[in-house]
Structures are given as structure tokens and as C-alpha cells.
């Protein structure tokens, strides 16, 4: 049996590197569209301030991209190094979108980003704009494929298990591509990225306005970020609702945990705003609920019920019991592939094979399974409720706070009154970390909520890990944490340095702090 320590360390390493990677990704996804908007205005109007905006924000985008690139490679390599059994089991399906994502990210996206930075003096205005447009599309397409891969982990469609190769095999590529979970996840995630890019530009522009420097530059940047951010915030919330619907369809356990819904409620279920969760007794000591809302989000109807955790456990008990039969039939088939009876039994029960495999955490031989062990496996199918419940709510509160901020910022832009509302500018400045916190929490809810599975209902996490030594995992984890901490410090240093310099860092002679920048460019140090 696999050591629990090995499983926990492997999960911790993947979580740490994935969460770190996603500090960079949303900013890239969002900034690229803001650059496209700014450059489009430049090409249409010929006003040089819009080119300066594209180049200055493009510089910050470039710093983020350069420091973020290769943090994704770590994740892809970890599928081989730390999750070798996972890669074998589902590589036939998971590998295809992952490979396309790699090609998109490393070739299309990187090439176009290179053209964006080095093409200003080499390409005509329309051609450079075309490059920026393709860069935006390429960046988002790259996200599409990784989210198709992740969507399949949440809702494994278009594949079936082969007892001969001991792996899942793809039977319908298009079902994988058009997986509703993947589509909902893609639009929700990229919208969150757009929101992050908008918040970044809005916050830094607000800081310039508060300090009354580069005012025309900052007002225009503020306006673009406010408009794009408002649209993005609305889309994140609407698409998040859609994501909730698909989660409700495919992963009822995750939905029940997010809602701390222990019992099935009469339809349409109410949305629990806050609750005092008692996991030991599996109940909520108190709760504040809005009637109907959860039923409408989760089922799009007023008559269909959303199952509670206790009913899901009853259903999962049947699936674990059925899964034991599937594992035994698989064992018989592996010993004699001409065993017709075993094949027939296996085909009838293989949908629950993953649930049977949950017991391998406790026992090697299925003949030794006891009712108590089945109960433990059933309990394992429910993720911890408290982190799911509060992680989701903090994300949602931040989402609505950002919607309010962008709404007011957009309104003040229409009224050309950005500078007259210092409270709004300060609010925008202090909200800078909000989209990152929301994005990380969103991923936490999606991934932690899928536990105990790497592939929902198919492959338990504890069977997915490579049999590495614990010392290797401790060492590499320390290496990643140290290395990534240094990278983060460098990123913050460069971002703050260039944000402080502002458009003056372009050296055009049109902005504040030019003298400082010239000294910096000449290597004579900064002065304030």
C-alpha cells in the first residue's frame, strides 16, 4: 500500500507549484486584451499616448510573462516525476490536450510575444496590431487546452477503461473537447484573468492619480481598465453561476460540500450564506439562508432536488460495493482473459471500478474488505466541508466587491471625475491583491473539492502518485519553495520598480521622472 506521507507530500508539492504558477497566468490572460484595446485605439487615432500606454503596460506584461514562464513546465514535468501512475492510467486522454497546450504556450504564444516586443520598429502599425491580436488569441487558446485537460479530471467523459492495458482509453475526442465542465471552467477562468489584468492596471493608474503624476496617461489607463474590468466582473459572476450548474450536474459531492448541505432539502433548495458548520456531528449548528437560490443555480429548475451529503454517501456506498465486484472481476480477467463470466461482470460494474479502488488505501486483498472499511471508503468520498464552504464564500465576496469597484470606476470615468474621488482611487489601490486571492481560492475549491480523486470517480489520488522516496519529496519541495520565493521577490522588485517609474521608463521625454529613468538607464542609480 502507498504511504500516506508520500501522497500528502506529492499533493503539497503539486499544490504549491500550481498555486504559484497561477500567480502569473491570470495577469497574462487579462493584460494581453488590455494591450490590444490600447493599441487598437493608437492605430485608429494615431495618438502617441496610446502607443506609450501599450508599451508601458506591455513592459509590465513582459516582466510577468518572463518570470512566469517555466513555472508551468514544472507542473507538466511533475505529471511524469511525481504522478507517473496517473500519467499511465489517463495519459491517453490527458496527454493530448496537455501536448496541444504545450505547443500553444511555447511556440505560438512565445513567438507572438517576441514579435510584440521586438516588432515595434520593424512592423507597420496594422501588422503590429495583428501580432498583438494573435498574441491575445494564442494566450487564451493555450489556457483553453489546459482547462480541457483539467475539465476532464473533473468530469471524465469520452473515455473507458481497458483491462488489457490497465489504463483509460479515449473513445471520443470531441466529447473531451466539448466537455461542459471544461467549457464552463475555461470561460470562468479566462474571465477571472481579464478581471486580474484590469485590476492591475486600475490599481496602478489610481496610484498615479493619487500622486497627481502622468495624469492624462493614468486617466486613460484607468478608463480602459474600468470598462474592461466591469465587463469581466459581470462575466466572471455570470459564468461562475454556469460553472456552478455544471458542477451540480457532474460533481454533486463538491456542490454539497461547498454548500455544507448535509441533508437533501426540498426543491428548490436555499443558498446558505453563512453557517456554523459542525463536521463532527455532520450538521450546521446555525445558518443564514436565501430561499430558492441554490436550487436555481444548481439545477435551473424549481422542482429538481440537489442531493445532500448524507444521501450522496448512501449512493456512494452502493458504488463502493459495486466497485469491489468490479475489482474482483478485473483480478479474474488479469489471471485469465478468456474468463467470459468475469468479463461480463466487469463490463456490468466497471463504471464503479474507481470506487472499489478507494479501498486499496486500506487493504490489498479485496477478500479482506469489511463493512467498516467500506464505511471508511465512503467517508473518504466527501471532501472536508469547512475549507470548501469558506473558500468559496471568500472568493464570491471578493468577486462582488470587485464588481462594485469596477462599476463605480466606470461611472466616474464616464463623468470624467476619476481624480475627484480619492476614496475610490484608494479603494482601487488596496484591492490590488483581491483577484489573485479569488483566483487561488477558486482553484483550491475546484481541486480540493475533487478529493479523494485525481480523476473524479475513476482514479483515487493515493493510487496516482509515483513511488518516490519521501526524502526526495522533502528535498525537492524545499528546493521549489526556496527557488519560487526568490523568483517572487525578483518579480515584485521589478514590477514595483517599473510601476514606480511609470511611463517615464519609456524614455520618451513626455512623462514624469524622466531624469530618474535616464540615470537608471545609464546605470547611475535611482533617485527620488
Amino acid at each position, binding site marked *: 500500500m502507498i504511504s500516506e506521507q508520500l501522497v500528502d507530500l506529492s499533493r503539497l508539492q503539486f499544490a504549491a507549484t500550481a498555486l504559484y504558477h497561477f500567480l502569473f497566468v491570470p495577469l497574462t490572460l487579462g493584460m494581453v486584451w488590455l494591450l490590444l484595446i490600447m493599441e487598437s485605439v493608437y492605430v485608429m487615432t494615431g495618438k502617441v499616448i496610446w502607443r506609450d500606454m501599450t508599451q508601458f503596460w506591455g513592459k509590465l506584461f*513582459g516582466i510577468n510573462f*518572463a518570470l512566469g514562464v517555466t513555472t508551468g513546465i514544472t507542473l507538466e514535468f511533475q505529471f511524469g516525476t511525481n504522478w507517473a501512475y496517473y500519467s499511465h492510467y489517463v495519459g491517453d486522454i490527458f496527454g493530448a490536450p496537455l501536448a496541444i497546450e504545450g505547443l500553444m504556450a511555447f511556440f505560438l504564444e512565445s513567438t507572438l510575444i517576441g514579435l510584440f516586443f521586438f516588432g515595434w520598429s520593424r512592423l507597420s502599425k496594422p501588422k503590429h496590431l495583428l501580432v498583438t491580436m494573435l498574441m491575445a488569441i494564442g494566450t487564451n487558446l493555450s489556457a483553453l487546452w489546459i482547462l480541457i485537460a483539467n475539465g476532464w479530471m473533473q468530469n471524465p467523459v469520452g473515455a473507458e477503461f481497458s483491462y488489457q492495458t490497465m489504463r483509460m482509453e479515449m473513445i471520443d475526442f470531441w466529447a473531451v473537447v466539448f466537455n461542459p465542465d471544461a467549457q464552463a471552467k475555461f470561460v470562468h477562468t479566462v474571465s477571472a484573468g481579464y478581471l486580474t489584468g484590469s485590476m492591475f492596471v486600475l490599481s496602478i493608474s489610481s496610484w498615479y492619480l493619487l500622486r497627481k503624476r502622468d495624469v492624462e496617461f493614468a486617466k486613460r489607463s484607468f478608463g480602459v481598465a474600468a470598462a474592461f474590468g466591469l465587463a469581466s466582473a459581470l462575466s466572471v459572476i455570470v459564468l461562475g453561476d454556469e460553472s456552478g450548474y455544471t458542477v451540480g450536474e457532474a460533481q454533486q459531492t463538491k456542490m454539497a460540500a461547498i454548500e455544507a448541505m448535509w441533508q437533501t432539502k426540498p426543491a428548490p433548495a436555499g443558498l446558505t450564506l453563512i453557517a456554523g458548520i459542525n463536521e463532527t456531528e455532520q450538521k450546521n449548528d446555525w445558518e443564514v439562508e436565501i430561499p430558492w437560490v441554490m436550487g436555481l443555480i444548481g439545477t435551473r429548475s424549481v422542482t429538481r432536488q440537489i442531493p445532500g451529503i448524507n444521501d450522496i454517501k448512501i449512493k456512494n456506498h452502493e458504488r463502493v460495493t459495486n466497485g469491489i465486484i468490479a475489482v474482483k472481476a478485473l483480478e479474474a480477467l488479469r*489471471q485469465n482473459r478468456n474468463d467470459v463470466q468475469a468479463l461480463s461482470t466487469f463490463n456490468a460494474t466497471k463504471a464503479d471500478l474507481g470506487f472499489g479502488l478507494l479501498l486499496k488505501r486500506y487493504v490489498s*486483498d479485496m477478500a479482506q474488505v469489511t463493512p467498516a472499511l467500506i464505511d471508511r471508503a465512503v467517508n473518504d468520498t466527501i471532501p472536508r466541508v469547512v475549507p470548501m464552504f469558506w473558500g468559496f464564500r471568500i472568493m464570491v465576496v471578493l468577486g462582488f466587491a470587485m464588481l462594485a469597484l469596477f462599476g463605480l470606476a466606470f461611472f466616474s470615468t464616464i463623468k470624467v471625475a476619476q481624480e475627484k474621488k480619492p476614496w475610490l482611487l484608494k479603494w482601487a489601490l488596496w484591492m490590488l491583491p483581491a483577484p489573485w486571492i479569488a483566483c487561488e481560492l477558486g482553484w483550491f475549491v475546484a481541486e480540493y473539492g475533487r478529493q479523494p480523486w485525481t480523476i473524479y470517480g475513476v482514479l483515487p489520488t493515493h493510487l496516482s502518485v509515483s513511488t518516490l522516496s519521501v526524502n526526495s519529496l522533502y528535498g525537492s519541495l524545499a528546493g521549489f519553495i526556496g527557488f519560487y520565493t526568490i523568483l517572487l521577490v525578483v518579480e515584485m522588485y521589478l514590477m514595483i520598480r517599473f510601476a514606480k517609474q511609470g511611463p517615464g521608463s519609456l524614455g520618451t*521625454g513626455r512623462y514624469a521622472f524622466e531624469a530618474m529613468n535616464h540615470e537608471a*538607464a*545609464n546605470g547611475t542609480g535611482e533617485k527620488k
Partner: protein
Amino acid sequence: MEPVESKNINRNSRRLRIHLTVAVLLKLAALVLIWWFFFREEAVDINADFMASHLDIPAISQGVSK
């Protein structure tokens, strides 16, 4: 674009470009070092029989047909 402006942009950008290139190279070196020290010797050989053994399921007795 004015020549002086272009010169300033180039100077400032060159410095940033060097910083970023060094950062990317150091990142790649760090990743190689982590792999070299912690994963190089730990390669996991995977095929159907290894997978079966990992799941405590017997290896196929009459050969694997693909």
C-alpha cells in the same frame, strides 16, 4: 520615432532585457538542478503490469494484447 527617444528606449529596455534573460536562464538551471538531485535516480518504469502491480492486481497470465 525620434532618434534620441529611440536611444533612451533602447538603453532602458536593454537593461530590463538582460535582467529577464538572466532570470529565465537561472530558472532553467534551478529546475535542472532540482531534477538532477531529487528525481534523476527515481524514474518510475510504467507499463500495464507495473500499473496492475501498483493496484495490487495480478499481472496478466496470457500476455497483453493491444
